[in-house]
């Protein structure tokens, strides 16, 4: 009961498309957040130094 060759490739590409896009999306979001928080920390430090 073999499937049509093109069908099986189509679903394989869809499956890996979902897997890669979610993993990359999550990693991207994580690294952007880390960068943004680090930037805010340095800005707050500068502001505190200016105040003291």
């Amino acid at each position, binding site marked *: *009961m*073999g*499937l049509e*060759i093109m*069908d*099986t*490739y189509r*679903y*394989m590409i*869809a*499956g*890996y498309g*979902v*897997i890669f896009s*979610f*993993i990359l999306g*999550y*990693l991207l979001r*994580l*690294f952007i*957040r*880390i960068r943004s*928080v*680090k930037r*805010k*920390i*340095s800005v*707050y*430090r500068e*502001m*505190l130094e200016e*105040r003291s």
Partner: protein
Amino acid sequence: MEEKPRFLSLLDGITGILFLAAVLLVFFYAPLERSMGAVQKVFYFHVSTAWVGMLGFFVSALMGGMYILSRKKIWDMIGFSSVEISFIFFFIAIVSGSIWARPIWNTWWTWDPRLTTAAVVELIYGAYFLLRQAIDEPQQKARFSAVYAIFGFLSVPLTFVSIRMLRTIHPVVIGAGDPTGGGGFSMTGPMQVTFFFSLFTFSVLFVDVLWHRIRLEKLESMMNKLRLELTS
């Protein structure tokens, strides 16, 4: 703390290489399964993402226990980070499984015991985030989350054993009694190598991403302290 630890950079590199190797094994080393064809290849990363999901939920329950015993904030940070990562990976496992099911079972979704229990697990951990958002006081938030993570984890082993104890169409590939039913198959040598290598790669990926996520939690905590100093 703001500087990235050298070992973490090294781990990033190792994870990247392992992941690339796993992808190459899946697409160029593992043979095509005779009846399912190329769509069977989804299996390698589908199981690996589900494994990361279950591993992370276990870590969060463990960290919940550690928090209740010691009341140290770090256990809450690790537990929460772990749930966030696992929630994403378990969701990937559900969606990729659904894509595999369409040509094999001729449906995107069926209320089979494995699929149902997996959906319940995802909903339980979705509610974990709602619970955390609803509580402002940090210690109370950590305490409630710890207890919830421990009880929430009870659903995970239930999902794991569901295909082994109940009547289901979901294939049991590891330790299968009947590999021919419902899209099941017997793994050949190269398939086993690819499968276990993918599991190992995703375990390393989990540790790497968890470390980054915990780092983010610590940085956010530092940022909030500085913000408080500024406003006081």
